[in-house]
């Protein structure tokens, strides 16, 4: 290590020798950086899971454009929309088809008396509202009353339930005074607001939610003709539909808006964002503490080097060397532990916690920058002083 750094730096690797000379301090510093990394990576993992899970239902829609009420922030809020807008939209050149989608939340009571929350989507079984082939294969069956398909990634469902449904054993449960018969499953996964999803026909939906009307869907899924320019159709729809009650967006745009709202306006997003900031602060303070103690302990030696004629950038390079070593040594255990925790947590709560290369590299780069800033602050005293005053 020493020889490697000596070749790399073209000088005695004082930073490394200094750090490795005091093993206890090195271990404590590396543990501190690892802990800060772990904190940041976990918060980013949750944050990423939130962003990722927002997208799941949108990805299911067989749509190019979405028409929603103008006051919609996320998929699950906002007023219903006059179905009239769908018929108006069909007249716009380039629109191949449109179908309404009805949305609500439903309590699913478990045998032990606890409740799971399901996002319920009511669709016309004759229209292809979804891309998911597992849903499309069973659409015809949904046209019978009180038939449903369930998300097999629903959190905390009874063990073996979905396997038995897939084996042909229909599952019935009572809700809203009706008996629903679940005849099949599909895999999507719930997000932060619900445990899973349920797909029913629009007619079943209106029976479950009698105050909802066919004339007022939550969303209109618009498909374009092959070769149609999405931007041109979008502009046409926006010009036609009144913006006091409806908004037209591409699916990507809608996802982005939803993610932005949930990460900046909802507490859950802000909490995770705050967690990232706390992690960075903890890391900064730990590294600053370590480096400033190190500078203070070596003030006489540094003063001697300064007296010999070493410039300030020499001391900066020692401190950056130390900062870089701490950042890399701390990142390795922090990264490995968070990989393990990602696995454990995503198993436990069925959220999509996944390590991404940009996230890992970003945190490593951020750690190096964070350590360097701490180091730069730690050497300020050295920069100003007369060498003679430092002895």
């Amino acid at each position, binding site marked *: 290590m020493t020889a490697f750094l000596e070749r790399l730096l073209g*000088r005695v690797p004082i930073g490394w020798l200094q750090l490795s000379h005091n093993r206890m301090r090195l271990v404590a510093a590396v543990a501190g950086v690892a802990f800060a990394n772990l904190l940041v990576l976990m918060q980013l993992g949750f944050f990423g899971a939130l962003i990722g899970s927002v997208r799941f239902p949108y990805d299911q829609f067989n749509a190019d454009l979405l028409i929603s009420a103008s006051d919609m922030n996320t998929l699950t809020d906002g007023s219903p929309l006059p179905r009239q807008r769908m018929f108006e939209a069909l007249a716009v050149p380039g629109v191949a088809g449109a179908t309404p989608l009805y949305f609500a939340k439903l309590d699913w009571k478990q045998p032990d008396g606890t409740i799971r929350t399901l996002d319920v989507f009511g669709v016309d079984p004759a229209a292809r509202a979804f891309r998911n082939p597992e849903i499309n294969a069973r659409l015809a069956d949904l046209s019978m009353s009180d038939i449903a398909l369930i998300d097999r990634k629903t959190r905390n469902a009874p063990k073996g339930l979905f396997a038995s449904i897939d084996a042909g054993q229909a599952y019935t449960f009572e809700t809203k005074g009706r008996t629903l018969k679940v005849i099949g499953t599909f895999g999507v996964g719930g997000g932060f607001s619900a445990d899973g999803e349920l797909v029913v026909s629009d007619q079943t939906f209106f029976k479950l939610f009698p105050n909802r009307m066919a004339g007022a869907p939550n969303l209109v899924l618009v498909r374009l003709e092959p070769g149609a320019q999405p931007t041109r159709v979008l502009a046409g729809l926006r010009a036609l539909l009144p913006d006091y009650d409806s908004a037209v967006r591409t699916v990507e745009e809608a996802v982005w808006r939803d993610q932005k709202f949930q990460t900046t306006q909802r507490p859950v997003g802000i909490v995770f964002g705050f967690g990232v900031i706390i992690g960075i602060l903890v890391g900064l303070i730990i590294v600053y503490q370590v480096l400033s103690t190190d500078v203070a302990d070596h003030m006489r030696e540094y003063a001697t080097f300064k007296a*010999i004629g070493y410039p300030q950038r020499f001391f900066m390079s020692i401190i950056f060397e130390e900062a870089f070593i701490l950042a890399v040594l701390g990142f390795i255990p922090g990264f490995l532990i968070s990989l393990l925790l990602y696995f454990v947590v995503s198993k436990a709560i069925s959220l999509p916690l996944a390590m991404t290369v940009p996230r890992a590299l970003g945190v490593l780069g951020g750690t190096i920058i964070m350590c360097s800033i701490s180091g730069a602050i730690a050497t300020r005293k050295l920069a100003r002083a007369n060498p003679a005053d430092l002895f």
Partner: protein
Amino acid sequence: MAAHPIVTGGLCHWFGEGEARKQALFDIDLEIEAGKLTVLVGASGSGKTTLLTLIGCLRRVQTGSVRLLGTELAGAEEGLLIACRRRLGFIFQAHNLHDSLTAMQNVRMGLDVHGRAAAENWQEAARHILTLLGLEDRLEYLPGNLSGGQKQRVAIARALVGNPDIVFADEPTAALDKASAMNAVDLLKRLGAERGTTTLMVTHDSKILDRADRIITMDDGRITGDSG
């Protein structure tokens, strides 16, 4: 270039601020010749070390003039001070070695400051100077494993390895036994004779006074005696 490597004129220095401001040096006019061992003596608090650190670019000049190797230090930029420091060798009362570096690496620090070209054959140069100071079997020792005298000799090696024009030494022999101290002083005198290296030393050691070319006595911030 001035004939003398060190020339001061009207040099005054104060410490502290406001009411506590106290003058430590009064109108020091001094010329020191090249290649000689000049010793500063005087009671503690007489201003010897202050004078040494002002001439050695370790403190900024407040009033008066210091011409070091032809360069005026009063009002000099940090960059110029750094360039001057590189032509000097410092031996401090405490050894100030870096405790994570071996004797060889510590000596190398005195060469690296001159850039990569100067440090190319650093091992040869460092081994040579450490051998001259009787440390040939302690080359790879960390300071923690060396005696006080050995550490001080490594510090002397670090000061001399870069072939400085002037060596500043503040009580360098306090930690040395008599034989080592004489060896070090002889080395400095030899460098003076062979290379014209000038040495300015603060010391109380009477054995060294015997070998000094010139003795300057200070009292209360003024020069009160000068054998030269």
